């Protein structure tokens, strides 16, 4: 005998995420919600409001700031926290560099992987025992393997070869001192689910998700944005193209796609037809190595 619930697709995903958010808050002493200003974290924050209002959120928002942010994203992050009256904790990769815990090969090198170090330092400094993140299993083949309640050892490391069993929706959030959980309420959402939910709930996003003109250079299959930290190399031709971002990450590794989708409805239409995955189309950090995401996660990354 099997059973089903007759909720509609997005209602089912929404309700599941709210359930997970409430379990995460109830089973931890000192949780935080990772909020970068990106679309997934904006959806996650919206769901957190649905899970906990009219009360204040039972956790602060936490951003691991590489200092290499696209224009408008940190402003969006700060305005959102202020508008909601919620506490925002920002941990800076720059501070880890100053402390010497992060050493970059060159001043303009990507700070993407260094985020794990700063994240672990923030966990220790604030005694966080559970971090809520907006990662989705459809993003990457290592993420596709991850539990909703993902256990991390005292070094913040994910051990994909011995994950804790996770039965039904009975989440076991018990920890030994020093360990932590990463909890992913959006595990079962796809990129298309995220956009259709943003449309339904009218969730605000930073403007760079929508079509705009931007100076870019061609870099293999990518249009690499030309910015202060990613200047054009000698001989590269700077072009002004109409683009939008599918993901918002560190400037050094995130590329926009050519698109004239200027509103959410147009983005949904494009997403339905897309033949490239979200990370495949936009992330240079994953191109370095087949197992780039898995390795970062084993080092404590989100």
């Amino acid at each position: 005998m099997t059973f089903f619930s007759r909720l509609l697709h997005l209602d089912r995903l929404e309700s599941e995420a709210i359930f997970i958010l409430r379990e995460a808050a109830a089973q931890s002493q000192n949780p935080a919600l990772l909020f970068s200003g990106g679309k997934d974290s904006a959806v996650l924050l919206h769901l957190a409001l649905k899970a906990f209002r009219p009360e204040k959120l039972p956790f602060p928002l936490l951003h691991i700031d590489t200092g290499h942010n696209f224009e408008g994203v940190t402003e969006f992050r700060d305005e959102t926290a202020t508008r909601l009256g919620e506490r925002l904790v920002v941990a800076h990769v720059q501070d880890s560099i100053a402390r010497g815990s992060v050493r970059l090969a060159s001043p303009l090198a990507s700070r993407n992987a260094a985020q794990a170090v700063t994240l672990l330092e923030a966990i220790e400094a604030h005694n966080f025992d559970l971090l809520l993140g907006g990662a989705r299993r459809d993003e990457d083949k290592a993420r596709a393997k991850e539990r909703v309640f993902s256990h991390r050892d005292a070094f913040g490391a994910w051990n994909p070869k011995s994950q804790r069993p996770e039965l039904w929706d009975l989440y076991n959030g018990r920890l030994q001192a020093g360990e932590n959980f990463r909890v992913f309420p959006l595990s079962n959402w796809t990129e298309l689910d995220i956009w259709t939910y943003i449309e339904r709930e009218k969730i605000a996003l930073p403007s760079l998700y929508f079509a705009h003109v931007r100076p870019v250079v061609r870099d293999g299959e990518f249009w690499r944005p030309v910015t202060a930290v990613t200047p054009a190399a000698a001989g590269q031709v700077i072009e002004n193209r109409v683009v939008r971002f599918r993901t918002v990450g560190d400037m050094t590794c995130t590329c926009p796609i050519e698109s004239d989708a200027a509103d959410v409805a147009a983005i949904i239409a494009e997403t339905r037809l897309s033949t490239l995955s979200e990370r495949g189309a936009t992330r240079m950090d994953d191109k370095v190595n087949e197992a780039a995401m898995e390795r970062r996660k084993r080092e404590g990354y989100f």
Partner: protein
Amino acid sequence: MTQTKLVRIVTAGSVDDGKSTLIGRILHDSQALMTDQVDALSNARFSRAEKGDLDLSFVTDGLESEREQGITIDAAYRYFATPETSFIVIDAPGHEQYTRNMVTGASNADVAIVLVDASRLHQGALKVQTRRHATIAHLLGLKVVFAVNKMDLVNWSLKVFQEVEESLKRLSRSLGITNPAIVPINARSGDNVVTISPAAPWYQGASLLDVLQSQGEGTDLSDLPFRFPVQRVVRVDGHKLEAQRGYAGRVASGQVAVGEAVFVGPHRRPTKVSRIETYDQSLGRAEAGQSVTLYTEDEVDAARGDILTGPESSYANRVIADLCWLDDQAWDPRRRYLLQQGTAAITSRIESVLHIRDMRDLSEVRGGQALKLNDIALVQLHTQTPILADHFQDNPKTGAFILIDPETNQTAAAGMIRGVV
């Protein structure tokens, strides 16, 4: 938004029988793979495919060690949709060492595809792991569909297929699975996976994907008795006299309307629902699957871990349950375990092992005081306080529980309530 059916599928069966390849094939042939993902497959290290071909098992075998060793270690989740159905496909490992990951995947699925390698049977004898996985899938209440894979290696021989079919029917009978679909396939090339192939003119049935799509949905959870595990207590206007407490949670089963009576805990303290709230709405009624906050007419002093029920409920502190033991540490009869049911964690002891299933012939071995990794057993449990005694087969939401080792925090066992003492 139109209603699409959700089907959650898990693969099962012995190591190397072709589960991951099958999932890769289904996604590939349903145009559910992105161009860059296919490109990544063709350049992948450790690929077992011949030149110019793709190793489709790598669609889900995404971990470095999985590719290197050519086996699946943990379950992968993939999502795709046909016009009628939205699918979650969970590719589980076949290796015995990782059975707990298969149980994890199966607990989140409605249908299991149990694969058998047609070329590796002797007189149709099934492997132990095939029997174990079919047993687990059935105990967890999944529908079981069989796929006889690698038919190319036996030249699509009807005789071989019939031998395997006979064994699968015997296995089904001993488990109580009625009329299972049994589909001959080649996962590597896709014959009979998404579309019917001319390779087996003798096969009259539907393709595997069609069989999966045509599975009935079963019972509507809203039609079961009302169950609402409290996740958190909400205090509104805490400083004022009219301060009110609400109970946030997700309706596990059944439905509830404003004005209806609900009952709290083993003493079944009655009260009435006064309001049903979500973030931006007041509802007249809530049904299975919805996350809401319930307010009651009286202060009933419910807390996280309590389950609000409708009028039908029974509690017991001795239950009979099926257990899948998942922990490397064997059961220690002197120790207590935390039983997590809904949002409650209750101290419990396993009082006796009634029987353990022998996976070689599925016979039930009586007694014994040992319960170790991968054992499937029927046990008698004693809980410190009475628990809701819903039978798993009647209500999988509240009939399920896990046992947690309080020393190590490991999830030691998956449990399904079958009766009371």
